[in-house]
């Protein structure tokens, strides 16, 4: 394509203007011990869940955790794509993607390394709950798209995916609930961190970086089994263990709303 010589070309590298603002070193908790969005440190975010959002999919769900919005569709069980060797255990294929407009910085269309890592964690969390031995020679496809990322995207995604699998009538040992916690300092945990409360190493100086991080845990509440753990940031092991404990408690508390969402959906069908 011949270049247009009358127009100035777009620069190859562009940055968001937010990067050039002075970084706000205000602490995460203000004097009234409230967070930026007015919550207490232990207060969890408001959650909204709905099943059957996507009519073409076998099962689907929409989950909103404060402002983070995640939509998930499940297709299957269907024939395995490639003519691979005969497998008695079904295959779970997950796809996790941030929509290009979902984060503060625009994401590309092709999944980058971070997205494939989160996809792997999602797959492994769901594999422990789905009864794959009941679907030989088949595959189940789970597609998760994050429409708006305001923190705790992975936790919302795992919960939404498990809900969608239940909506698709895929057999599971238990539903998977996930929660995340931001750690700053030895005793301070913020449940369900928003995007600004998440851990970004470049916002902290070297001295302040110790015992700072974010921990996400996926749990099967009734069976009390941990299906996924992901943490980042340098912490003492006791702090990490406590953070995992906090996440586990919070995931347990999610069980009641999840159950309510599924049963209310059933009630509609009966009519």
């Amino acid at each position, binding site marked *: 394509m011949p270049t247009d010589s009358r127009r100035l070309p777009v620069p190859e590298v562009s940055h968001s203007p937010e990067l050039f603002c002075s970084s706000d070193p205000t602490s995460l908790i203000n004097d009234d011990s409230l967070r930026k969005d007015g919550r207490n440190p232990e207060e969890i975010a408001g959650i909204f869940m709905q099943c059957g959002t996507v009519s073409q999919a076998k099962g689907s769900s929409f989950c909103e955790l404060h402002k983070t919005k995640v939509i998930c569709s499940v297709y299957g069980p269907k024939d395995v794509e490639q003519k691979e060797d005969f497998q008695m255990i079904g295959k779970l294929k997950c796809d996790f993607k941030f929509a290009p407009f979902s984060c503060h910085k625009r994401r590309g269309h092709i999944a980058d390394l971070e997205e494939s890592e989160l996809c792997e*964690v999602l797959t492994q969390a769901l594999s422990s709950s789905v009864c794959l031995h009941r679907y030989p020679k088949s595959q189940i496809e789970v597609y998760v798209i994050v429409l708006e990322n305001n923190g705790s995207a992975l936790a919302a995604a795992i919960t939404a995916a498990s809900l969608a699998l239940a909506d698709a009538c895929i057999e599971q040992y238990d539903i998977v609930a996930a929660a995340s916690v931001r750690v700053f300092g030895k005793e301070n945990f913020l449940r369900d961190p928003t995007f600004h409360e998440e851990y970004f190493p*470049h916002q902290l100086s070297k001295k302040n*970086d110790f015992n700072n991080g974010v921990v996400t845990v996926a749990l*099967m509440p009734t069976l009390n089994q941990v299906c996924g*753990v992901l*943490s980042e940031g340098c*912490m003492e092991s006791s702090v990490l*263990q406590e953070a995992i404990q906090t996440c586990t408690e919070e995931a347990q508390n999610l069980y009641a709303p999840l159950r309510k969402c599924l049963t209310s959906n059933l009630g509609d069908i009966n009519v």
Partner: protein
Amino acid sequence: MAKAILGDSEKWFIVHGVQDDFRTDGRSCENYRHIELETGILSNTHGSARIRLGSSELLVGVKVELGTPKPQRINEGWLEFHVDCSPNAHPVFQGRGGKELSDNICSMLTRVYRNNTVMDLEALGVIPQKHCWVVHVDVLILECGGNLIDAASIAVKAALYNTGIPNISLTDGDEGEVEINLPDDPEDVKHLKTINCPVLVTLSKIGNRHIVDATDEEECCCSASLVMGVTRRGHTVGVRKMGGGSLDPESVTEMIDSGKKIGRQLHISLDKLLKIEAGMSEDIKQTGYL
């Protein structure tokens, strides 16, 4: 991942052995296999290391290049990891077959090196906002014998320890621009401070107990494993659960404690070994693969 194919009775044998704290090669649950480590074997790189952990073999090469600093950190350089699975290790890695494994290892390494405490990135800055050192760490997997993640992290630490960044001097050039001059002497280098670099410890759950440094066969029997990055002082820098099984919350706590203890021991032996090797005279020939 290139998995060994085991029959059911073989799996039961391994599981029962682990219950009694006695693995197939005679180790206890918390012992590593024999580790061979050699640094500085590739002359084209600024730092390199070769590790042989049991029958797993990896090669790490570190090259530093001048690049532009990231907009959020104008005074600092950065590290970039890249993992490649050579088809030498297993025919399944031909073409793009090894992408999943290499992505896993790469993302785990990036995760544990992503905070401010492990490396002094300001030492990699040259001219704020214009130039900085970018450290490219390339891991090449040559043989798969289980526990590649741990081996990769040990080799990366050794290679970074061995890395020498040229001591550049800045002079004022024309038009007010600062010129960067490389030294003529290839030995005129400054070393990176790797004292806080973490090591990844993989704890695999088999039956009711967890083991460290699983071989290929043991990896087939394990349902879930926890990979954690541990620094010299026993702090955790990143945790990720791998595998399709589930873990008890108490197991997770136990595994973190074990991992911390084992990680610290690993650091002590590794630091000692690196110091000894650095102090060795240059008359001793580097053997590499010979």
